[in-house]
């Protein structure tokens, strides 16, 4: 059950979110400058390789967001105390994950146009990624179905635990099947990373920066979800009280 007391914060910001926010700005500023100015062009792909500093981190953070959704959903279902806090973090993480997945697909399409010569092809990696996005849009739709907050949490937690199984399918699609999309560079099963040093450093900076963006967004979003749940709950309480008063007066 939700706490009936009023929230103890007047905004969704805290000292922690402000620190994360400042760190995010610093790291992302470095990523933009390094990605556009300091890093070299690629010997084959030329300047288009710079899209990598957005495309790859956003894909990884989308995976991370969906994994966080699954873990917090598992905590909600399997923990003795079914804390709705886990459900809210799961929902917030899925929303942010969908946003990063869209960024991944848009930047991937642009990169594909410049290298493959096509915005989109139904190859295994692109198809499974599109399927993953649709699945999580479905997850977000389920969270908005009618029912109590507890029903919402239970339904969406089950879906989250099933949907996360798609992530290995997406990641290894380029290994299982023949894909137009290249194989992993950093997470190459052979462990042999073939990337220029500054490119690699900028890519990792991008991953750190996007992770900070992710943390900052879900901290705020899960708090707005708490406020929304409290508002809904107080409306329900008021309706019950009004009905009880009607009975008393009758």
């Amino acid at each position, binding site marked *: 059950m939700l706490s009936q007391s009023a929230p103890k914060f007047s905004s969704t910001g805290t000292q922690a979110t402000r620190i994360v926010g400042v760190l995010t700005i610093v790291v992302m500023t470095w990523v933009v400058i390094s990605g556009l100015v300091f890093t*070299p*062009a*690629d*010997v*084959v*792909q*030329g300047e*288009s*390789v710079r899209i*990598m500093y957005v495309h790859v981190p956003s894909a990884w953070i989308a995976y991370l967001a969906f994994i966080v959704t699954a873990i917090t959903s598992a905590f909600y*279902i*399997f923990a003795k105390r079914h804390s709705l806090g886990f459900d809210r973090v799961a929902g917030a993480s899925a929303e942010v994950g969908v946003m990063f997945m869209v960024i991944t697909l848009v930047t991937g399409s642009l990169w594909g146009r*410049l*290298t*493959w*010569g*096509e915005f989109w*092809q139904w*190859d*295994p990696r692109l198809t499974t990624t599109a399927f993953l996005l649709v699945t999580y849009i479905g997850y977000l739709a389920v969270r908005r179905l009618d029912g109590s907050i507890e029903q919402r949490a239970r339904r969406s937690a*089950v879906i989250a*635990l*099933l949907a996360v*199984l798609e992530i290995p*399918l997406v990641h290894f699609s380029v290994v*299982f*099947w*023949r*894909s*137009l999309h*290249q*194989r*992993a*560079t950093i997470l*190459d099963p052979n462990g042999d990373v*073939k*990337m*220029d040093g*500054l*490119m690699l450093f900028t890519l990792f900076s991008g991953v750190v920066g996007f992770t900070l963006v992710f943390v900052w967004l879900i901290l705020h979003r899960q708090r707005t979800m708490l406020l929304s749940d409290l508002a809904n709950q107080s409306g329900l309480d008021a309706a019950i009280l009004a009905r009880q008063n009607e009975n008393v007066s009758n």
Partner: protein
Amino acid sequence: MDLTPRPESQAPKRRRWMPIIILSLVGVGGVVIVTQFLSSAIDYYCNVDEVGVRSGCDTTNRLRVQGTVEQGSLAKLNNTTNFTLVFNGKSLDVKYSGDPGGVFQECVSVVAHGRLVNGKLESNRIEVKHSNEYEAKNKDRLEESGSAACSQVQG
């Protein structure tokens, strides 16, 4: 009606291991389907050495053929681009109507879409399948970029 919560000992215990077993079975089933049954249906292209040999790579069908553009084979003539694709010791001549543009060059892997006519692939679409290797383009060695691409592809 008595709505007092029942004592802990009387409450039926929920079997929480069932969802875990079901999820595990779904996971195992998914892996089996993906690795054993879907490969032949989902592969995006045929390699050069599989044309006319592998199921789904029949010479009578429209094909997507993957191979590396052989060094020294690229020739552009009258809005037509001719080159040879090589893979695993086999080669296939390709005639493409137009200029592939973009990052197309010798020694890169490409997927050529088209039909086989007299043993030559007449293609109307070329997709450059770039590698997972990233190497700095040095301004002092611009002229070496072509050979660098070859060294990347050939490992």
